[in-house]
Each structure stands twice: as structure tokens, then as C-alpha cells.
């Protein structure tokens, strides 16, 4: 593991001229320690830059410091299971120490929601209709957007319900596009549902007026609390609470992982802009797979020249954010022991 043990953490904006080789070692990484004080940390970035590896490494480190930590994978590719060399499921399982992990499976979450709706329907409608209604609900199960909605449902529930059980929750997110969509959903959905709530209230008001005019027999029994209205309000309130947590920089941190290459830099720049538009605070930039200073050879020398240009560009593009460089390893990072070593290079 020749590459490990050296990293640079600097406040970007200190100037490209000062950007030394990766060999400059700093042993204090206050900004990254701050990260672990946050309750919820997201790891985002372009596909293939090492989000899963770093999220798992940070989670293991946090768990071994004695903080009850949950690593959540929202990526449908399920790389988290593979990297931890274990089988994860829809409920949290212990990985090592106080580190737990859970994988959100869209198919499973959709089934969970659908069967919940079916169970509630069974009690409220005429038995002869049950079959027909279930048929309709099964159509909804495969309709576009159903899985996204189910994943989002689980996502809000994890944030709300497991926040008290775990000191720290790390989200290993899907590639940028999907994640930005997921994070923008609380606002979009809450707005739409607020509209429905307004409509429903109007219907209820007119029902009361009509009852006053036509008598109770014309409208039937008016329930004091409308079940439709309360279901909508409960959902809107949950979305709003999720949004509140996501935009609270004392509780939530968003970490972008990228590699010193052209496309990840461009994509991350766009993503940072989108997140700031939704008010979600970005807390750090992790530059993964930086060539270690002792990697030799003419080929790597030329590669390093190219890389230092990109590193300078990263410092420039993300000035104002703490930037941490993580060196390229000569081995694959697989399993808890290897991940622990990755974390050790960051938290020397």
C-alpha cells in the first residue's frame, strides 16, 4: 500500500501556485472531522468516481469511533454489498463495530407500499369490489415513477425514523442526476400535495354549506376529520420535515466525490450549482484517485502533469469548499479491512 499515508487537505482558493504534489502531508483535517459531527452525510458525484468506497470507508471509521452509524445505499446497482463483501437487505444489518448498513431496493419498497394500500383497502370497500380495485393498484405498481416514489418514501422514512436510533447516517447515493432528483423531490412533492390539500378543503367547505342548505340527509354523515385530508396533510408534513432536515447545515452535509478528470469536474460543478438552488449545503470535495507522489515511470510522469492541471482546476472551481485529496491505491479496495485503511489515510 505504497500510496496510502499521504494526502493533502487544503482550503481551495489558496492558489493554484501553492498546490504542491500529493506528498505534502497534513495530519490535521478539521473540516473532515466536522463532517462526522453532522447527523446526515450524503456522498454524491459522477458514476464510477468512488462514492461507494469512500462512503463505506467513512461509515466504518465513524462506527469504529463508537458512533452508531448507518450506511444507506440508494444506488440500485447495490455496489455497497459487493464492496463490504456481505449481503445487505432492506433492514439495517451490522457490518462491523457500531457500523450498520442498509440497501434501498426499489422493487421491494414498491411492493411494501402497494401491499400496505391493499391492506387498508380491504377494510374499507365492499368485498365484491376488492378484486377490481386490486387490479387497478397492480397497474399503478408498474406505472412510470412508481419506483422513484417508493424509494423517496423509504428515504424520508429513514431520515425521520432512524435519525433517533443512529448518531450518524451516511447516504451512498446513485449517480448525480438521480440524486439531484431525489433531493429536489421534497419541495416538488410538498408543493403539489399542498395544492391538493387546498382543493380538498374547498370541497369540505362546500359540503358543509350544502348540508346547511339541504339538510344532513342529502350529504350523509360528515366526518369531523376527513380521512382524505388528514392523509394528505400527514404526507405533506413529512415531506416538509425532510426538506427542513436536508437544508439544515448543522444537521446535514453533502460531500462530492470526483476524480481529477475533465468530465467529473464539469458534472460536479453543475451539481453544486443545482444543490445550492435547492438550499442543500455542500460541505466538502473529495478528490479521489490522485496519483501518489512515489508512483514512478515516464508514463505516469506525463499523466501526473495532466493531473496537476486538473487539480488546479478543481481548486479553482470549488474555492470556498474544503478539498481533500485521496491517493490512488495499487490494490483494489474491497472488504472492511481495506476500507478501514482508506479512512486511516484521511484521518491520520
Amino acid at each position: 500500500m505504497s500510496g496510502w499515508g499521504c494526502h493533502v487537505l487544503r482550503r481551495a482558493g489558496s492558489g493554484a501556485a501553492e498546490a504542491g504534489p500529493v506528498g505534502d502531508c497534513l495530519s490535521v483535517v478539521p473540516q473532515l472531522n466536522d463532517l462526522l459531527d453532522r447527523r446526515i452525510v450524503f456522498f454524491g458525484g459522477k458514476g464510477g468516481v468512488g462514492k461507494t468506497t469512500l462512503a463505506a470507508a467513512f461509515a466504518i471509521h465513524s462506527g469504529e469511533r463508537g458512533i452508531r452509524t448507518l450506511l444507506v445505499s440508494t444506488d440500485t446497482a447495490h455496489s455497497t454489498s459487493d464492496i463490504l463483501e456481505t449481503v445487505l437487505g432492506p433492514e439495517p444489518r451490522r457490518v462491523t463495530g457500531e457500523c450498520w448498513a442498509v440497501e434501498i431496493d426499489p422493487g421491494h419498497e414498491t411492493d411494501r407500499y402497494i401491499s400496505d394500500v391493499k391492506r387498508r383497502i380491504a377494510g374499507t370497500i365492499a368485498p365484491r369490489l376488492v378484486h377490481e380495485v386490486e387490479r387497478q393498484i397492480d397497474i399503478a405498481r408498474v406505472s412510470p415513477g412508481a419506483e422513484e416514489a417508493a424509494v423517496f418514501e423509504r428515504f424520508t422514512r429513514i431520515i425521520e425514523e432512524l435519525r433517533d436510533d443512529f448518531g450518524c447516517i451516511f447516504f451512498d447515493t446513485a449517480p448525480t442526476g438521480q440524486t439531484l432528483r431525489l433531493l429536489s423531490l421534497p419541495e416538488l412533492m410538498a408543493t403539489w400535495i399542498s395544492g391538493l390539500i387546498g382543493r380538498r378543503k374547498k370541497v369540505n367547505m362546500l359540503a358543509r354549506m350544502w348540508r346547511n342548505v339541504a339538510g344532513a340527509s342529502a350529504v350523509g354523515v360528515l366526518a369531523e376529520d376527513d380521512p382524505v385530508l388528514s392523509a394528505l396533510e400527514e404526507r405533506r408534513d413529512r415531506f416538509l420535515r425532510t426538506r427542513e432536515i436536508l437544508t439544515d447545515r448543522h444537521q446535514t452535509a453533502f460531500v462530492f466525490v470526483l476524480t481529477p478528470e475533465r468530465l467529473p469536474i464539469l458534472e460536479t460543478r453543475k451539481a453544486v450549482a443545482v444543490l445550492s438552488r435547492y438550499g442543500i449545503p455542500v460541505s466538502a470535495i473529495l478528490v479521489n484517485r490522485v496519483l501518489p507522489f512515489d508512483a514512478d515511470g515516464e508514463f505516469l510522469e506525463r499523466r501526473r502533469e495532466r493531473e496537476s492541471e486538473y487539480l488546479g482546476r478543481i481548486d479553482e472551481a470549488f474555492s470556498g469548499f474544503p478539498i481533500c485529496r485521496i491517493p490512488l491505491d495499487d490494490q483494489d479496495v474491497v472488504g472492511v479491512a481495506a476500507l478501514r485503511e482508506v479512512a486511516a489515510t484521511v484521518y491520520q
Partner: protein
Amino acid sequence: MTRRGTDLQQLRSFALQIWRAVRRRLRAAREIYEGVYFAPYRSAIHREYLEQRDLFLVLSFSDFLGIPNPVAFYTLELFPELIDQFHQWHVRMGMPRAPEGGFRCC
């Protein structure tokens, strides 16, 4: 003394009878007044109530009509509460049986 007491009781029940008769006529008068007053609005209020109820139904389940609904997945849970209204809607619209495409309630 006893005679006086009986007189008082008779007087009281007589007054009560009068009061009840007056109240009955007052109530009848109010109903006539309200009937006259509300008659023009009665059908308008009913129509508005039904229209708003239908609109809510459409907004909740617009995907059944082919109109995208971003919260379709979440309104699914309102289904059991609203299926009865859906039935009333298609009967009122002159369709004795539920239309194809949406949920068939009958």
C-alpha cells in the same frame, strides 16, 4: 292557599301552550323565508359542491385519464376513501357502468 296554587299552575301551562304555538309559527315562517331566500342559491351551491368534488377526484387520479400526475403513487392511498365518489361521478355523467381505463367500481 291551595286554590291559589292551582290557579298559578293553570296559568303557567296556558302560557307555555301559547309560547309553543308562537314558536311553531315562527319556525314555519323562518322556513318559508329561508326557502324563498335559498331557493335561487340551492342548486348553485349543489352544483358547485359536485363540481369541486369532481375536480378533486380528477386532480388526484388524473393519470387514469392519461394526464400525468407527479403524486399518482401517493394519491393511491386515497383510493378506498374516494371510490364511492367515483361511482357517483360516472352515474351523474350518464354512464351507468364505470368507464374503461379507470378503476371499475361496478
